[in-house]
């Protein structure tokens, strides 16, 4: 018998899509029965009460979670989000229900052994409810009490060699795409770079010293499966400089219909016979492709590496060999001044361990500038807007490049610097008046 009636939530059990309500209920039942004999360190009925408070939110159309609270583990300023219920008398099992962010492994690969260890820990010291995964990428442990925080951290670090992720005004847990682990488009090892930078910047990740949050995300190619260009302060997008590799026989196989275009992604509808002219060449944004008899020609110098042709014919076309990343800066969601997309600041940089150039010539100068000039709760993109792309170029010590803009300015309001103008700005008005009467 359920502790709380949940007539509204019950309506979310029907339909084909996995029901989180059914899942919560099975967890509530499991905890009530406790067949495994777990010595629960937080209320056994936490999930019952979670269902109860959620039902109340469904009834009221409002959340019943209070504004955070300052809880955490000693020496860290992030990784734990304090959460308290605003109806603790009705739902004592979730009165204190804090979140822990657990730094996910790259590519979100797991062994079942490790997942079970995490489950055992979380059944014992928490609610047994998680997010796999949070939006930033962490494993989210959803709901525990304050006394358990240090205990969980101790077990994570001592038994499982596992650290917390970021929260607050610090480096947020970096995230990557599946990359070279299982994708032929990946232009660099996203997981290796993500892991290296995560470890290099543990201090920045755990101890908030920034004006606001800061995100790194690593996309292996311009398809951007982790959406780095839209949501990371520094977005690392794999790219290449040389030629797309062409297997002309495979091109013919696509044309002849032996291989389904776009890896079979359009199999649910009859789109007619594959037409390379219409589906690839005419859709190329730079018009740099053509068929020359039976040979596909690409004018690689004009290619902007949008990935369309490669996506359509993955068995015929392959990314080039001179690989690296483009780095874009300043993406963010709308809070406060509107959403911003990443701006290209480094067209190409090689990605070789130990990544010294990326760290010392890109990341660290940007952080120094942002920490010096950024206002409280100002994202990098907002600082870029306030002080200008020129300022960031100056900080990076690189030459301005037309690749950094969509178009040149259409107003002539240039902030000339004094040293750019011969003779400087100190002039003698009396000398001027000798030639120009008042």
């Amino acid at each position, binding site marked *: 018998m359920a502790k709380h009636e949940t007539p509204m939530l019950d309506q979310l059990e029907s339909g084909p899509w996995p029901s989180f309500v059914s899942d919560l209920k099975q967890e509530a039942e499991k905890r009530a029965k406790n067949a495994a004999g777990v010595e629960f360190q937080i209320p056994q009925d936490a999930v019952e009460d979670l269902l109860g408070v*959620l039902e109340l939110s469904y009834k009221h159309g409002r959340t019943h979670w209070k504004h955070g609270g300052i809880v955490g583990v000693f020496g860290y300023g992030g990784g734990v989000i304090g959460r308290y219920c605003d109806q603790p008398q009705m739902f004592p099992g979730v009165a204190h229900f804090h979140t822990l962010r657990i730094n996910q492994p790259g590519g979100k690969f797991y062994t079942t052994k490790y997942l079970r260890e995490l489950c055992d820990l979380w059944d014992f010291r928490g609610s047994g409810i998680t997010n796999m995964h949070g939006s930033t990428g962490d494993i989210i442990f959803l709901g525990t009490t304050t006394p358990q925080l240090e205990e969980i951290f101790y077990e994570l670090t001592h038994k499982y060699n596992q650290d917390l992720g970021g929260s607050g005004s610090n480096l947020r847990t970096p995230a990557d795409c599946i990359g070279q682990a299982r994708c032929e488009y990946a232009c660099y090892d996203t997981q290796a770079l993500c892991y290296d930078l995560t470890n290099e910047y543990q201090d920045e990740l755990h101890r908030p010293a920034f004006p606001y949050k800061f995100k790194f995300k690593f996309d292996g190619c311009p398809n951007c499966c982790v959406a780095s260009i839209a949501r990371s302060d520094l977005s690392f997008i794999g790219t290449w400089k040389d030629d797309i590799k062409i297997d002309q026989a495979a091109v013919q196989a696509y044309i002849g219909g032996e291989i389904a275009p776009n890896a079979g992604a359009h199999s649910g509808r009859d789109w007619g016979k594959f037409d390379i002219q219409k589906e690839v060449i005419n859709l190329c944004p730079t018009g740099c492709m053509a068929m020359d008899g039976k040979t596909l020609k690409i004018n690689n110098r004009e290619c902007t590496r949008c990935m369309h042709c490669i996506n359509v014919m993955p068995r015929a076309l392959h990314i080039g060999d001179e690989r690296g990343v483009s780095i874009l800066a300043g993406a963010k969601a709308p809070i406060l001044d509107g959403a911003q997309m990443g701006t290209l600041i480094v067209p190409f940089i090689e990605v070789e361990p130990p990544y010294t150039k990326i760290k010392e010539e890109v990341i660290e100068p940007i952080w120094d500038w942002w920490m010096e000039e950024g206002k409280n709760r100002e994202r990098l993109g907002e600082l870029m807007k306030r002080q200008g792309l020129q300022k960031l170029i100056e900080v990076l010590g690189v030459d301005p490049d037309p690749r950094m803009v969509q178009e040149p300015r259409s107003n002539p309001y240039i902030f000339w610097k004094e040293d750019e103008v011969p003779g400087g700005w100190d002039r003698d008005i009396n000398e001027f008046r000798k030639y120009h009467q008042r």
Partner: protein
Amino acid sequence: MAFISSGYNPEKPMEDRITDIGPRKFDEFYPPVIAKNKGKWLYHEYLQPGVLVHVAESGDEVYTVRCGGARLMSTSHIREICEIADKHCGGHVRWTTRNNIEFMVDNKSKVQPLLDDLAGRKFKGGSFKFPVGGTGAGVSNIVHTQGWIHCHTPATDASGPVKAVMDEVFADFQSHRMPAHVRVSLACCLNMCGAVHCSDIAILGYHRKPPMLDHEYLDKMCEIPLAIAACPTAAIKPAKVEINGQKLNSVAVNNERCMFCGNCYTMCPSMPLADTEGDGIVIMAGGKVSNRISAPKFSKVVVAFIPNEAPRWPRTSATIKQIIEAYANDARKYERLGEWAERIGWERFFEKCELDFTHHLIDDFRDPAYYTWRQTSQFKF
């Protein structure tokens, strides 16, 4: 419920303390076929919706079965995932960025038994535990935020609307009939913990009432200058108020200037915005993050407000279905939703999607607004 120590000594927190060790290293968890062929993959193919094969230079193949998952997941469910991964995948499993679960096997003969096993697993309430799909030109899983399950600022729930919408578009999670892939995302407030602002379809929780002022507690709970500075439209100013004969420092809000972003509430718990009638959903459309063919785009507001209709948000899911159907019927192969809207023109978009165009949809927020007005004589009747 006796307290059991982990070994941590609160008297000496620094004793044996281990910090700054970071995540577990990715390659500890690779299945053998991945470890062996990393960086040497040749191509991939979708064998059917939800099933991929990747072929390596070595000739090795890895077959991936992708399943939808609610990102809110119990340890019971994760243990079941482990059981499946042990049975079929040598104890390895992974998740995608869009909350899908991927089971990988190294031989084609292992695919069908895995599919059969997954198809038979249902929750008590009847829903699938592991629906296979989410690939290619279909509708993939919705990335989303916490909502009413665990957040303090939401204007809608997250898991509930996601369940309702995915039920509505379920057939397209399991098929490849779309012109291109369709990415749907949900953020339960403007903070957008996720990239909903660049999604084919974004579901966004939004408040419509200015903050209430808990004067009696405001100065005790909040740093008033921070609350004032938090407002992007300078709608908040300091104020003295009298409550029960007591003069208190507080704030005043110019309601006309409020655009309900909730940033003040983030800084000051004494300024809550949440409201049953005020809160609801904004639908945005036409964004993307990929650089394929056209540049990444922001999603545009196409429906200013839909009330929170718990528990199943029927108007939200019907509206999304309507947009997806109009797109599926009219767009060209490879054309993303936003590319389609731009090609046919937004006037046609509203016509084909049968959506009303209201004044709320015209940008009036600062300089960028001007660039969204039409400055040409070219338009469609």
